[in-house]
């Protein structure tokens, strides 16, 4: 072994909280002020109004408005199926992103444009199209009914399909750039070290994509929870079975039960916030593990 010592220590990045760092946009106070004001007006103000309206019911009133069979099952449908849709999108969206990044084929640009369509389409149009397609007399619905005796429209499955439809772009568009930046050498290194293709995917590629995948998942999930237009047509809206929480709010509004609607809205907000917070924390933890 050579006499030269190569073990020079490198300081670990263990910075405390840094309040100010030089940036190209001048005026920390000014920009922070604008940020807080903007967020307050755009996000916080409407939410505060919602909270105030719901609080008008008092604790007992909130309880009676929310602790009903119908509200609980609507929440189960909305959150449960949004999770299902987001999970399906996480897998399928990863696949789509993979194909779009890794392969060259004729018509790639067109397929790439297809991915964004769920963003652009009015959700009601998507809902009607999906319903027409999956209804027992629709093209796909009729086939599924004949072959498997399956019913899609007006069941939870139909809702899951609608939520999958509108959530796809989120996963594809968050994973795509990360996949593009993934150096091919890491995969080649894994191959040289004896890893099979599955092992390379599982241990090298997937962990690198995980933060982006989780972001896409969270976005698709959040979008699914709030989704209204595309779902109400295909859902059938049977209370307790295929009634989603946003629909419940609309129903309460139509009955002039504004405080009750606000209470449901408030609860949705809290649950969504809690789940997104957990996802964000998970992501922060993952990013910290291999910060560049």
């Amino acid at each position: 072994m050579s006499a030269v010592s190569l073990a020079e220590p490198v300081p670990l990045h263990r910075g405390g909280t840094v309040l100010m760092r030089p940036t190209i946009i001048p005026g920390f106070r000014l920009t922070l002020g604008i940020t807080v004001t903007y967020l307050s007006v755009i996000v916080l103000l409407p939410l505060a109004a919602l909270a105030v309206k719901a609080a008008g019911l008092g604790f007992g009133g909130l309880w009676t408005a929310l602790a009903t069979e119908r509200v609980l099952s609507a929440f189960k449908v909305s959150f449960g199926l949004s999770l299902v849709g987001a999970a399906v999108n996480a897998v399928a969206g990863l696949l789509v992103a993979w194909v779009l990044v890794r392969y060259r084929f004729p018509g790639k640009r067109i397929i790439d444009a297809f991915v964004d369509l769920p963003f652009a389409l009015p959700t009601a149009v998507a809902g009607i199209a999906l319903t027409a397609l999956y209804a027992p007399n629709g093209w796909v619905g009729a086939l599924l009914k004949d072959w498997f005796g399956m019913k899609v429209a007006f069941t939870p499955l139909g809702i899951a399909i609608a939520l999958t439809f509108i959530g796809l772009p989120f996963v594809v568009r968050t994973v795509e750039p990360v996949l593009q930046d993934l150096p091919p050498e890491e995969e080649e290194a894994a191959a040289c070290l004896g890893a099979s293709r599955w092992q390379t995917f599982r241990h090298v590629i997937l962990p690198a994509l995980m933060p982006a995948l989780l972001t896409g998942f969270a976005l698709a999930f959040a979008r699914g929870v709030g989704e209204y237009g595309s779902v109400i047509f295909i859902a059938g809206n049977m209370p307790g079975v295929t009634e989603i929480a946003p629909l419940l709010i609309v129903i309460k509004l139509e009955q002039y039960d504004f405080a009750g609607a606000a209470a449901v809205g408030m609860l949705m907000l809290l649950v969504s916030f809690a789940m997104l917070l957990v996802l964000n924390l998970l992501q922060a933890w993952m990013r910290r593990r291999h910060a560049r």
Partner: protein
Amino acid sequence: MGLRLSGISKRFGDYQALDTVDLEVRTGELLALLGPSGSGKTTLLRIMAGLEQPDTGSLQLHGEEALGLKPRERGVGFVFQHYALFRHMTVLDNVAFGLKVRPRGERLPNAEIRRRVEELLRLVQLAPFADRYPAQLSGGQRQRVALARALAIEPKVLLLDEPFGALDAKVRKELRRWLRGLHDEMHITSVFVTHDQEEALELADRVVVMSQGRIEQVGTPAEVYDNPASTFVYEFLGQVNRLDCVVDGGIAALAGGALRVATGDPVQGPAVAFIRPHDVTLSPDPEGPGNVLGVVTVGPQARIEVGLAGQILEAEMPRDRLAQIGLRLGHRCAVQIERVRAFPRV
């Protein structure tokens, strides 16, 4: 027998990356593939690893045909220029990767894997860094992790693609010396790619000089430096002067006949003389044919530009020697040339 490549050709579209290359890598040697960018050296290395498939030719790995084998079946260690460490794994996990992905039957017990990895980390002097992530290491440390990772699978052949290319000059030099020491200890058949002639000459047992997809010359560092097989090798390895000359009966007449030097080359008529700067000796002489046009000092060495019958000849000598003989800008001088290689003028 280590590696034998014969008739390897590879095209990328219109570009001929390799043109019928034959090469033998001997067991236990440290071989350098040296050439400018675009000479095909990295492609050749990637073909050895199985990361690239040649269009034609054959590759034998320890006597067995290997072209049909996937990279993971070849038992070859590969070190990338930019390390290609797994970012989300600690140093320990990076090095253990090759051992952990083995099929269940061949897998060592976890304790044994850990012991081997720790031993390797000691070997590359990174034992205290086992729990760090690659982002927390310097370039030189990352490259040593990459090396340990490649060695972990006990490869039959170690392939290194510009292993020091991304490092700064000082670290590069240390790591180079350290790698030489490591090779002397382990005697693992190794091939490394470089465009740095100094690196190739210092480190390798044998050097393969490549240009435009072909091998120009194979030999020990001394052989390729002292007896370059072509004008390309001459110019690529170190500084060289090119002077027009006329060869007659083994004597090269330079500078319109003012200078006559014996050359062993079988050339007759108009030729180009290749002269290393350190093979030129100058001495002050008011009647001499040379005229000092410039003096540049680099560390302990001095480079002197001499005008010689309308051509420029560069000479090199130690700085204190220059001071001793008292040669300065504008002086005339006598020129003596120790060695000349003459190649036909094209």
